[in-house]
């Protein structure tokens, strides 16, 4: 048991170090954006007819603590995030970033998780079946599908879906809410409205990850299938799907579970672009807005941190999960 606790602690510290490094990376990037928050905010005020002088900018910089050295500001930023979940203030809108991205981030994470679930719900069984029917027509059509998953990136798929739905149904199928509910407060009806439209972005987000993961599952199961312990099980009289599920598949799924974090990464990668194509007003689109239109570095940094934190937490959880459920790893602990 104590070995297990020690394992959890090491994993936790590894995850924590990664997050620290990520925060440093993200903070440095935010610093590299030409101009700082104070200038940006005041430049915005300038457009509203107010006269801004160099002293005003200096005063604003001091108020925001921008006159302090780089490392100290980074330390402040990180401790605020880790200890108080305070992501700072948006450069442009002067609202708490947490408040600004709160429910949008939740929607995006929700979409991504459902897409992730869909990825595994499809790729694991189909990959296993395909490994068992190696080199048949099912297998080869699956391989073509996997290649398409790589060659047709999600946003191109979204474009094609839009093209066909416009031609054949006269509707672009974009947006996450219908007009009636866009600005309405959260209610069950709004949720139902969202769900009736959310299936398309979810399927599109899951597309590449599914295609690639399917190929991985197939390769892993194929490798395990010819090993001696499977032959031994067969000699003991096991056969058919039961054998496939009990022996090679269970062994093959370890690496698959381990890669959940990276699949989530893949889905997050597609999120902003798919969001832009399908006009979703979630965090992905917000990030696009923050960067492309307004250079709001506080907001952009906060979103990247939140996305990366989710991935790192997922990696941590799957490590623990594997340690608990993989008998080979568990043996060392209990």
């Amino acid at each position: 048991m104590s070995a297990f606790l020690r394992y959890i602690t090491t994993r936790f510290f590894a995850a924590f170090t990664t997050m620290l490094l990520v925060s440093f990376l993200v903070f440095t990037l935010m610093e590299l954006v030409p101009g700082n928050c104070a200038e940006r905010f005041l430049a915005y005020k300038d457009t509203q007819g107010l006269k801004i002088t160099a002293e005003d900018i200096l005063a604003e910089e001091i108020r925001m603590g921008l006159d302090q050295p780089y490392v100290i500001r980074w330390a402040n930023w990180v401790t605020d995030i880790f200890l108080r979940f305070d992501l700072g203030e948006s450069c442009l809108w002067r609202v708490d970033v947490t408040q600004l991205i709160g429910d949008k981030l939740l929607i995006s994470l929700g979409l991504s998780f459902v897409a992730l679930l869909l990825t595994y719900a499809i790729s694991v069984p189909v990959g296993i079946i395909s490994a068992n029917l190696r080199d048949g027509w099912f297998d080869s059509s699956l391989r073509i599908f996997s290649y398409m998953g790589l060659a047709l990136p999600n946003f191109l798929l979204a474009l094609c879906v839009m093209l066909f739905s416009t031609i054949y149904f006269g509707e672009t199928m974009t947006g996450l809410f219908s007009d009636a509910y866009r600005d309405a407060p959260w209610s069950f009806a709004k949720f139902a409205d969202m769900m009736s439209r959310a299936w398309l972005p979810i399927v599109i987000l899951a597309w590449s990850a599914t295609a690639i993961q399917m190929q991985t599952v197939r390769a892993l199961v194929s490798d395990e299938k010819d090993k001696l312990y499977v032959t031994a099980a067969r000699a003991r009289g096991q056969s058919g799907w039961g054998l496939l599920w009990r022996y090679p598949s269970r062994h093959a799924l370890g690496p698959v579970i381990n890669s959940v974090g990276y699949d989530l990464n893949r889905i997050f990668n597609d999120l902003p672009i798919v969001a832009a194509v399908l006009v979703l007003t979630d965090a992905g689109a917000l990030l696009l807005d923050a960067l492309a239109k307004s250079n709001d570095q506080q907001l952009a940094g906060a979103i990247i941190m939140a996305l990366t934190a989710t991935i790192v937490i997922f990696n941590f959880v799957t490590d623990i999960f594997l340690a608990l459920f993989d008998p080979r790893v568990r043996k060392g602990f209990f």
Partner: protein
Amino acid sequence: MALFSKAPAADKDVERDESYYTAGQYTLIWERFRRKRSAVVALAILIAFILCGVFAPFLSPYEPNAAGRNADYVNGAPQIPQFCDAAGCSIRPFIHKVERYRGADTNFRWVTRPTEERNYVVFFPSGWDYKFLGLSMDRHLFGVEDGFMHVFGTDSGGKDIFSRLLHSIGVSLAVGTIGVLISFVLALVIGGAAGYFGGWVDTILQALMDTVKAVPTIPLFMAMAAFVPQEWSAEERFFFISMLLGLLGWSTLARRIRTHVLAERNAEYVLAAQLSGASAAQIIRRHLLPSFTSYIIVDLVISFPYMVLSETALSFIGLGLKDPVNSLGVMLQNVTRVDVLLNYQWYFIPVPFFIGLVLAFVFVGDGLRDAADPYSEPK
């Protein structure tokens, strides 16, 4: 070169002549590669794409930017050369001329409509000037006798989509090449150092690789691409974007190089080199790298399509390349508008070509990977 010619692929008991056992590594890889039909076809297609990119100015009838626009044929449909029409057939392919027309039947608005007049296709006409290998040239593969011909139609600015497509293939390949080369150098230095020195160097560098790998790249690309000041020229943007792709794309390759170095580090020949007084950099470069060059080439080919796709995604959302430079992403920027979706579907013609380009890379990469693996060979 016919090392395997005697042996049918299905035959497990392959007969080999003497040349097989004395063939070099690259000869063996090529021979294994050659036997996989899908990979060979993909290689041919890939070479065709590369040639298209290199000879784009010659192959495209018009300039791919505002200078080559046809103001009279904006958002024009593709004009496919034909041999026959109502007036009979001809051996020379032709298209029909178009005219600008305004009248009561069009509500007095200007429309472009085809006429019955034939416009014959000509080969090697002189057109716009371009530089090729330092030579100034003005010959192009094809054109028409009079006016313009747009095989893939035109966009909202009247620019020829066919010409833009050819140039964008070249740009995508160039972005990918620069990106892959930069990430390769970084991966080599970081992965090589991690694998060779081991210990705490390895721990730190691995933490770095994990970090870069955990951050979702596209949002990070977006964050960095937003630095590009608006007043930068198209060329500066191009190099900046290619550099970005390289700077963020090295982690997977670095990990693989680390594994290779780690596996080879304790071999006797490395010890021999160390005892002869070779420095670390020298050992990595002269002794370790050549032992897995083929694997690195394979990895580079495999990572190439990812670079191309990232560039496309970035340009598509307006943070990558910008208009005078053509790339698939730039060309697709405006296609989400409903009127484009409904009326101008030829904007999508470049999409299948790019799917083809990426697929060609993937198949060549897969073929090379199998060919470079000495254990994949039938015994």
